[in-house]
């Protein structure tokens, strides 16, 4: 074709080539490398050589980007709610119902900045609440921890901190056994692919579906590794209430415990190992502490309940003989435990028993010699050979904000990138901040107490620190500057989020968003942002480094791409940087925000020069080619994660922590008080030894919303699990006219032309309710009602239902916040309750519901 330009960009699901013709994007593809790109690594193992294909893989939602760029739901003009008058009646309780009218950028920014100035004058900057959505776009300059933070830090605001979502149990529970606060409770994964290919005999995927969740940002880079392991005869066991997509591709055996009871199954495995003497006693003796207490509990000496497989069968429904067979095989083979989709994570940790499950995963691994050859916690998604010496920052390393308090900028990058980094004295442990999970309570109730600020990874003890809103001497929230519109689909018990908008207690709401969906329609002023295909940026494949240090070991080749401005922003939409520049001009700090007038391309160039790229490629050549494949070092010594620990040596991996102050001898031992893996956690003993919800040793604790909560269970007898979705990245890729909607495993198109969200229900449960396949059903509990299409399946056992979270759209058929949602926000139903009173993480997989045939009158 004529006049076609082949440009480069990046997405949350892989770097891409973007073909542009006559100002229009016509094609988006994964990258194929050429002969000039760096060579691929090779691993020799068990007489075979393994090397990845010379291309990048791509996630489904990234292939659907063109349908989202040219979406019918794109916001193309600034909008004002028709019945909102900043100088008269605001009609706040009408949010979500009223229509919008187009206004000019000048009007929109006037209203917004006049309100900001008014609120700052009357209440102070902390009366402005703001938070962005996660994972919305890709690019180190435009990312929320970069451009957004830079603006907000200069304007002043109360930040709604993102929680440790997706790995809650590892953070609030697991961390106390092995430290790793610098990784938020998750362990390092270096070189574990080579270790597994050489030594591992079995893999246990427990609440782990890497084909669906792609590590994080890693597309299908790890799929080939699982094929390699299969080729070597490595057996693959899956434990998940849902016969997940990775199981569908490679499983040898599937166990589906009742949701929220995996900890019972884990204890019975430990019981079998202890009573049959098939655990690593030397390791327990030299590398761990507190095992005797744990052993006594498992054997029933503490509570007169031996945690036998028969005992566990009653809780988790897996036959006792199967649990024993699994324990025996695990105890006799070098086993990698893939607990969750990374070196941790997993739906099982996002539940009332999530802490205890994650804690037991660590304890089970320790009992088998965690860190010895072929034995680790590793889910195949990280730990590919990589050049970790080459500096290119992840998106959490602060970008153009350089915020050392609220990003990982302080680790190294801020010193290379900045003369004038920004920070916020309000968004600090000494100022005012609130948890994202409690935005509604803070707005509606005006007060709240919790533990841990945001990711709280500075130390193990940081999560114990108590905070309150309003912070001492700080004002209540008067304005909400929301960036994105996903929370009704992604948080818990989300009618709360709807109702938090529909109140006079919140006088002003701005939403800066790309699409008119979800929460966006609850704002007074909507500022239309463009996608990263419509502005300049720079990024690396799957590199979010910071808390997931060296996260690019997920991918088979480190690929850094220049994200070229492929097209002009659609309509009147603008890049986030442009929008913030306009606002900062009216607020008087444009010079500071833009550092004297820098464009986005200027920042991209500055970031390029702060990395190791210029040592290998000139700016001009990088612009010309558009991407760079980081070469492997000539000699690379393999340093498998935790091998040093198992062998009681000084840490030899490139891990970025823990901080020297937390260790008796730097580099030796873990971050726990003893420096060893602690079965009985000294940090919990010190904090609250009597906390029955999070005891010093991991225990079987009944779920606060499960089969033991009898009254509720009688009323709502189906246990709902709602993992992260397979085809969309949270809300990105879903609804908004995206092609993803047409995937029959994502949504189901009904005769009325609407794509309905799917709930998966076992044949027996469907029969009992008289439901037919693909029929519309009402899924409900006391928290709300959601309209879904039923998918009748044998991939979940009777009593369990499965529906992904993260509908991008919210479509109430009556009054917002009270009526049934047609779009499929399954999180209207999930609990807002924290895992435990002191573990302020969400527990969406502890959720009881009932399902019935939908009749129109039900609205």
């Amino acid at each position, binding site marked *: 074709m004529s006049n076609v330009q082949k440009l480069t960009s990046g997405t949350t699901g892989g770097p891409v080539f973007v073909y542009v013709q006559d100002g229009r994007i016509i094609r988006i593809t994964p990258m194929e490398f050429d002969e000039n790109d760096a060579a691929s690594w090779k691993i020799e193992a068990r007489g075979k050589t393994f090397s990845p294909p010379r291309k990048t893989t791509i996630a489904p939602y990234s292939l659907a980007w063109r349908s989202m760029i040219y979406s019918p739901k794109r916001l193309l003009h600034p909008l004002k709610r028709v019945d909102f008058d900043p100088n008269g009646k605001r009609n706040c309780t009408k949010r979500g119902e009223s229509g919008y009218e187009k206004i000019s950028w000048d009007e929109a920014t006037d209203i917004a900045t006049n309100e900001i100035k008014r609120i700052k004058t009357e209440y102070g900057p902390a009366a402005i609440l703001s938070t962005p959505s996660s994972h919305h776009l890709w690019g180190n300059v435009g990312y929320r921890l970069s451009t957004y933070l830079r603006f907000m830090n200069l304007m002043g605001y109360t930040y709604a901190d993102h929680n440790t979502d997706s790995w809650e149990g590892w953070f609030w529970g697991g961390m106390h056994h092995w430290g790793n606060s610098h990784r938020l409770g998750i362990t390092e994964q270096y070189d574990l692919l080579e270790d597994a290919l050489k030594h591992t005999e079995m893999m246990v995927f427990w609440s782990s579906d890497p084909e669906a969740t792609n590590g994080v940002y890693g597309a299908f880079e790890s799929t080939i590794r699982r094929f390699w392991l299969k080729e070597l005869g490595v057996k693959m066991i899956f434990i998940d209430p849902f016969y997940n997509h990775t199981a569908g591709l490679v499983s040898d055996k599937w166990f589906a415990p009742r949701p929220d009871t995996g900890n019972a199954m884990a204890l019975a495995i430990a019981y079998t190992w202890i009573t049959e003497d098939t655990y690593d006693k030397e390791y327990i003796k030299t590398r761990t502490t507190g095992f005797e207490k744990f052993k006594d509990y498992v054997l029933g000496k503490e509570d007169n309940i031996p945690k036998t497989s028969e005992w566990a069968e009653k809780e988790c429904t897996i036959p006792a003989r199967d649990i024993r067979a699994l324990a025996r095989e695990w105890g006799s083979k070098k086993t990698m435990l893939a607990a969750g989709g990374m070196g941790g994570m997993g739906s099982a940790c996002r539940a009332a028993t999530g802490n205890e499950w994650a804690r037991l995963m660590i304890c089970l691994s320790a009992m088998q010699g965690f860190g010895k050859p072929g034995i680790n916690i590793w889910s195949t998604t990280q730990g590919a050979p990589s050049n970790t010496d080459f500096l290119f920052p992840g998106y959490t390393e602060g970008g153009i904000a350089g915020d050392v308090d609220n990003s990982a900028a302080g680790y190294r990058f801020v010193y290379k990138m900045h003369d004038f980094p920004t920070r916020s004295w309000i968004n600090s442990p000494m100022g005012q901040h609130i948890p994202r999970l409690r935005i509604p309570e803070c707005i509606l109730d005006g007060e709240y107490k919790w533990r841990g600020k945001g990711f709280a990874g500075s130390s193990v003890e940081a999560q114990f620190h108590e905070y309150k809103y309003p912070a001492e001497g700080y004002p209540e929230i008067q304005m909400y500057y929301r960036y994105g519109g996903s929370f009704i689909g992604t948080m818990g018990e989300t009618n709360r989020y709807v109702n938090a908008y529909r109140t006079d207690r919140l006088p002003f709401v701005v939403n800066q968003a790309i699409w008119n969906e979800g929460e966006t329609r609850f704002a007074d002023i909507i500022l239309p942002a463009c996608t990263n295909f419509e502005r300049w940026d720079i990024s690396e494949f799957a590199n979010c480094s910071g808390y997931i240090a060296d996260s690019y070991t997920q991918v088979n080749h480190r690929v850094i791409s220049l994200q070229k401005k492929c097209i002009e922003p659609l309509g009147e939409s603008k890049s986030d940087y442009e929008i913030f520049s306009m606002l900062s001009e009216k607020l008087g700090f444009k010079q500071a925000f833009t550092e004297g007038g820098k464009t986005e391309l200027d920042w991209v160039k500055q970031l390029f020069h702060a990395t190791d790229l210029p040592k290998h490629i000139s700016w001009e050549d990088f612009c010309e080619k558009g991407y760079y494949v980081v070469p492997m070092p000539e000699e690379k010594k393999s340093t498998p994660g935790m091998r040093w620990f198992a062998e009681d040596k000084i840490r030899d991996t490139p891990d970025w922590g823990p901080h020297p102050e937390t260790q008796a001898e730097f580099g030796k031992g873990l971050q726990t008080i003893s420096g060893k893996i602690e079965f009985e956690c000294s940090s919990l003993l010190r904090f609250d030894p009597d906390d029955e919800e999070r005891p010093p040793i991991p225990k079987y604790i009944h779920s606060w919303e499960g089969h033991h909560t009898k009254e509720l269970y009688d009323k709502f007898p189906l246990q709902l699990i709602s993992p992260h979705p397979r085809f969309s990245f949270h809300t990105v890729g879903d609804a908004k006219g995206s092609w993803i909607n047409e995937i029959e495993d994502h949504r189901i198109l009904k005769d009325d032309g609407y794509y309905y969200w799917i709930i998966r229900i076992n044949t027996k449960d469907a029969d009992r309710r008289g439901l037919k396949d693909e029929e519309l059903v009402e899924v409900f509990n006391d928290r709300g009602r959601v309209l879904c299409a039923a998918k009748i399946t044998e*991939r979940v056992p009777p009593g369990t239902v499965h529906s992904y979270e993260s509908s991008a759209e919210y479509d109430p058929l009556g009054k917002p916040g009270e009526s049934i949602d047609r779009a499929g926000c399954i999180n209207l139903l999930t609990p807002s309750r924290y895992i435990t009173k002191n573990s302020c993480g969400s527990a969406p997989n502890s959720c009881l519901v009932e399902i019935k045939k939908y009749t129109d009158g039900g609205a």
Partner: protein
Amino acid sequence: MQKWNFILDVKLCQGCNNCFLACRDEFYKNDFPPYSRAQPRHGQKWISVKQQERGQYPRVDVAYLTTACMHCDDAPCITKSDGAVYKREDGIVIIDPEKSKGKKDIVNTCPYNAIFWNEESQVPQKCTFCIHLLEEGWKMPRCVQACPTDALKVVKLKDDDMAALVKSENLERYRPETGSKPRFYYKNLYRFTTCFIAGGVAFQDTDECAEGAIINLKDASGKVLDTVKTNNYGDFKFDGIEKNSGLYTIDIECPEYSKLTVTEEVSECRNIGVVFLERR
């Protein structure tokens, strides 16, 4: 003359739908004359992924069948379209977007339902094998490029060489009874088209999984079709059984335990559950 063929390994397909999405990305709002008019935003799956679950909890599996235009050698769409559809020398079947204009009937000629009607441009449409890209030097169509597992491939071979590959790789056509001679071949097609009988064996006296039990599968005449041993979970599975193929008998033998026989009528996949052996 070398000709193009699709090959899908059903065992390697995980239903990620990247093939469908890449196809839509290539053709949405993009005309490629003289081969194709643009696809609409929604509704047309020139390459389509069907999911099939087999078995009953907890003995289940899942398989996906990806279908597109089969680029048949005896294509009914060609014979029934008065020259609006033609076969190229490289095996690719193309619907001429000019000559086919207004001819909605062509949609119904395809035994594989691979042709769609474009209401806006009034043309029947289907997979073009991305011929416009192959002509620019691409080595494969978009769907193949986006496949993360190499489940979907294309090969350009002389018919004789393809026939040899079909034989050596055990490739099959899907629904060969259509007689249209598709150029789309499948490996491990049994995963989608046939069924299995699976179950578990345990010892009554110890309530342990019965590892190493010998299981014979016999047909109605008593002929032994296959023999397997149970694994450490007591599990066994016989796959590749034709649907609706009648009565089967399963003999379960284990030293020191009484022999047990189970008879099953096979219409669809069957998980017979756990069978308990009694000590002799």
